[in-house]
């Protein structure tokens, strides 16, 4: 590491950045901020009536990508796909109901339905209260991202894609659990709605991925306002992940082994680099925070996030939790990587 420069880049981070530059080039992306402060004043719903009225900054003309939208918008759309998935899972598990139609329709991509899911009958009322809290947060993320995208342009909100959160033999959770070896690799089923622990393990499957996705996207965001909002959602997902990991660890050996197996499966789906960590170290001690030797959480590229969401190690669109793929104005932000 070069120490004579304050901003000497970490070698690994630079490598990853270079990878991303290539990725964006493929996507035909030119960086552009969508209207900064004007947008914020439009969607800051909690404004005090008497607070100073911000003077709208003239919107910069975005440099269009091949698809006609900025990278920032593509990243917000990517995030909204993941939030649709999380929000539907938690809402159905906690409340037994899906998100209302008004929170799911948009202008980009094909509108899909949710397959599977049912309300969990929790044994532990505390875990039930956690499920409700996280469900509320994820629903808020869906609505906030939709509002931000709407403010950025009237036709930029993506439709909810088809989502599979079924707990049966053909469900995405079962496929993930078979891959992780939680159940028999050919005939086992994994039902996240069956009991408290299965619910926690299913939540675990998603949460750290959300963290790494938002973190991986952070340096690609041009608008400072979007960056601050994304950092706030990143924080929320990290709190969720920390909560789920703490609960699982406290449950003992079986839960720890299962969570570790899921982390290993995620890490193998997204390629050979270590981007994940289980909740227990090999000596049995707690590892509630998945971080590198610098104490920094991991990043995943959009493609790597899709490897996990699609449960595939090949490049392509669709599979796993999103049978028809995610929706995005930028085609490359729907695609998984060849990681096998």
């Amino acid at each position, binding site marked *: 590491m070069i120490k004579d420069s304050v*901003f000497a880049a970490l070698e690994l981070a630079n490598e990853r950045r270079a990878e991303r530059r290539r990725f964006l080039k493929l996507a035909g992306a030119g960086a552009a901020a969508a209207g900064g402060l004007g947008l914020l004043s439009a969607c800051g719903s909690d404004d005090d009536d008497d607070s100073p009225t911000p003077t709208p900054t003239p919107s910069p003309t975005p440099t269009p990508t091949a698809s006609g939208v900025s990278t920032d918008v593509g990243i917000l759309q990517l995030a909204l796909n993941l939030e649709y998935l999380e929000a539907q899972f938690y809402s159905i598990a906690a409340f037994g109901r899906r998100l209302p139609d008004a929170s799911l329709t948009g202008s980009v991509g094909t509108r899909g339905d949710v397959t599977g899911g049912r309300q969990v009958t929790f044994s532990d*009322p505390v875990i039930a209260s956690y499920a409700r809290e996280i469900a509320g947060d994820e629903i808020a993320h869906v609505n906030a991202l939709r509002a931000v995208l709407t403010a950025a342009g009237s036709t930029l909100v993506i439709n909810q894609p088809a989502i599979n959160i079924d707990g049966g033999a053909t469900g995405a959770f079962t496929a993930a659990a078979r891959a992780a070896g939680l159940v028999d690799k050919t005939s086992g089923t994994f039902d996240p709605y069956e009991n408290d622990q299965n619910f926690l393990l299913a939540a675990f499957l998603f949460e750290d991925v959300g963290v790494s996705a938002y973190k991986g996207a*952070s340096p690609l965001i*041009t608008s400072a306002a979007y960056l601050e909002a994304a950092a706030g959602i990143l924080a929320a997902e990290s709190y969720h992940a*920390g909560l789920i990991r703490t609960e699982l660890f406290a449950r003992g050996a079986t839960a720890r082994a299962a969570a570790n197996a899921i982390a290993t499966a995620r890490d193998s789906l997204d390629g050979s680099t270590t981007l994940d960590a289980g909740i227990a170290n090999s000596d049995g001690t707690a590892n509630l925070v998945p971080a590198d030797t610098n104490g920094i959480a991991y990043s995943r590229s959009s493609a790597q996030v899709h490897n996990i969401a699609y449960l595939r190690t090949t490049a392509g669109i669709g599979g796993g939790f999103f049978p028809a793929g995610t929706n995005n104005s930028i085609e490359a932000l729907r695609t998984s990587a060849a990681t096998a």
Partner: protein
Amino acid sequence: MSDHAPLMETLEARARRRESRRDFFTHVAGAAAIGTTAFAASAQAQTSPSPTPTATFTEADVLNFALNLEYLEANFYSFAATGAALAAADTSGNVGTAGAATGGRAVTFTDPLVAQYAREIAADELAHVRFLRSQFSDTTRAAQPAIDLGVSPTSAFSVAAQAAKLVPAGTSFDPYASDENFLLGAFIFEDVGVTAYKGAAPLISNKVFVEAAAGILAVEAYHAAIIRSVLYRKGLATPSLQLIEATTAISNARDTLDGNTATTDAVRGIAAEDDQGIASTETSDGTVSNIVPLNENGIAYSRSAGQTLNIVYLNAAAVSSGGFFPAGVNGNIKTSAASA
């Protein structure tokens, strides 16, 4: 310590000041403190089409500020987990006045899980110190300032606890005396770290550092979730300990110290009420926990550097030392906001 009286005073004025919030906005708009003014200016600059920041403070200043906060956290957890402060090799620097971290000691943990969590968090915070230090040369790196981690009735922890009414006025709060006290001591810091990194996110233009800061932000949020969820479980298990009530009181104290913000923005996560304890709420769907402190958009809050310093200095006024940093933090960002 003359800084204590203003804290108690502002706490008692909390309700009154909330009522006069609108009045406050009109005043603060014209007379913001140095820190917040500079940050607001640079944030606006970065949302404009030109990416060139016009910040009063450099990115090196922001990173040195973060390093001061990490010195504080790392020493607290190091004392609690091992009985020792950070080693000299981890605290040197030519910027500012070097000081010692004093007054801490090892916690004799009762709950082996809490002991493990303390060790894990201690390791993470030390890694953060070392990572941030590695980005500087000796001449540009902030030295560790004097840090008060003691337990006397006039120590920073005791003053904070007195303000939150966890202990009677003039008496000692010892975060090393029990598992519960340790968790409450940790609670005082963790959410603050999250909001501080988040508030700084849009001020950093170097993309490598945006990503690294996002990764530290995530880790602080994982930590905060561990502390909050363990406190919640222990609070429910033994209501007489009043742990849940204590988090609300500490949160209120922080919220009072950091004042109101000149702007409110629900997308960026900027609000006058920017802190929450872990007390649950009752809804028609049942009890909903509050492990994650978020706004109505599910977005974590931001604090400016000045607001963060209000909390660690335990002073709502614009000052350059006090509380946990008796001689102030080292670096160019050192003055708290005028939040009283």
